[in-house]
């Protein structure tokens, strides 16, 4: 059944058991991500040291896609440089928007979101946490 392309095992697994759920203590950056049209919300907190994301966590509420995406994201960017995180943001965004071929080799579990591009209504769910991350990387913190 095609819907399984969207709701992949990995996604369900992360939805049920979100990783890095909560808030980083003494975070360097706390960013609020929000989709005002549907009401989904995420709060992302990060610790950055020497240009490396050393700690990251998320809280909030939303659908399986947005929650799983946040969970996978935190796992994938932890330990990465800000530069690498930005690169992943770009790759991931391109992939879920279906904008051309994306090399998913270095993307690990992020590749599980490939099916999202066939569900345009859900692209913004998959991107909720990533857009918050982007704001964080741009130093747009509050």
């Amino acid at each position, binding site marked *: 059944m095609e819907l399984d392309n969207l709701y992949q095992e990995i996604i369900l697994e992360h939805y049920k058991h979100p990783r890095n759920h909560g808030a980083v203590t003494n975070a360097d950056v706390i960013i609020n991500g929000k989709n005002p049209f*549907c009401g989904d919300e995420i709060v992302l907190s990060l610790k950055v040291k020497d240009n490396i994301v050393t700690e990251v966590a998320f809280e909030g509420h939303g659908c*399986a896609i947005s929650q799983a995406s946040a969970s996978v994201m935190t796992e994938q960017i932890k330990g990465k440089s800000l530069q690498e995180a930005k690169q992943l943001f770009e790759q991931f965004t391109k992939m879920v928007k279906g904008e051309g071929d994306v090399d998913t080799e270095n993307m690990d579990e992020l590749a599980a979101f490939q099916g999202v591009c066939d569900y345009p*209504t859900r692209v913004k769910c998959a991107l909720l946490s990533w857009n918050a991350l982007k704001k964080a990387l741009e130093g747009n913190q509050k």
Partner: protein
Amino acid sequence: MSGAETILKSKNRITIDNVREQFPFFQQPQNRGLIYLDSAATAQRPQQVLDAWQEFNVLYNANSHRGAYKIAERATDEYERARAKVADFIGAASPEEIVFVRGATEAVNFAAYGWGLHNLKAGDEIIITEMEHHSNLIPWQMAAQKTGAVLKFVGFDETGMLNMPQFYDLLSPKTRLITVTHMSNVLGTIPDLAAIIKAAHATGALVLVDGAQSVPHIPVNVVELDADFYVFSGHKVLGPMGSGALYARREILEKMEPVFFGGSMISDVDYTHSTWNDIPWKFEAGTQNLPGAIGLGAAIDFINKIGIGNIHRHDRDLTDYALAGMQGIKDLRIYGPMHNRGPVISFSLGAIHPHDLATFLDSRNIAIRSGHHCAKLIMKRLRVPATARASFYLYNTKSEIDEFIHNLENAREYFSKWN
């Protein structure tokens, strides 16, 4: 089944198929099989409405009230005729009491700016309910902030019924306005407006009724209702997007300040001061959406042909049918009253997030809405971030509801592997 459903119970038995045929949306190959259960967000439009829009554009497109030639006169005439149709449809005493607007949101804003800012003062109170759409809440927050008036909230119980004792408690000589929906777009609740308006008028308060959800589904008569303001959107009542109406009693409109300023709303203009045209034109600054208003008139013609009473019965029957079916689904929770309610049903299904549920149904070609439905106070009170919502209109059928319910069962099963 569907072919046999009769929407018009009286003599000439218009069947649901007859009705659907007149909606080109459902006739497109791309939309075949699409079960559209989101009419509370926006309704589909009959051919007659599209034709009216088209006819304006190809036959007599001209700016109204300004031309000195035949097609401009026709444009003006048809626009004013549409106003008269709207007045008739909601039982206004005269067409001049109808201001054309973009939709219910703009209408409430006009009332909040044009009446609110000039009539409210510090300490005055506005009674509002916790089930209002943002469009009938935030304009009053603005008016309250600017004038020092205070908002007082009437809550609702688990079945979605307004807390009437609380309303009577809140009502006082300080109350200047009660602003209340005629039908909740989340809960389907139809508040007891007769009681509210009677009590309000007894203390000298005015009442604004948000008819965005009611006008499409129930016969409305603003004079019998004794509403002071009444607002609705054209696009939810089979008219074009960008159309709608603000009704207010003549004395109120006459005293109300214009909100937008510009062409066509003036009587005289000097360097630093201007004076205003008569009602309703003083509220209609600049070029209006003429084919929008004329299309709304055509929508009303269409509804009158079928009979709003018949539509009301049809929608109520579908709602009862859907409620009965949905109650049989395990873990399905319905928000709102089970009787005497509008054809809009908010619900949740187990722990499935409404967006995921909507995506599942979308993959089955069933369009429902999920989210906060522009009613965050309701979400707060229900303690949910979002709900799923199905809503019905005259073109929906019982077999569509069967499909819907069947697929709710499927969704439950599909997502059950998540537990």
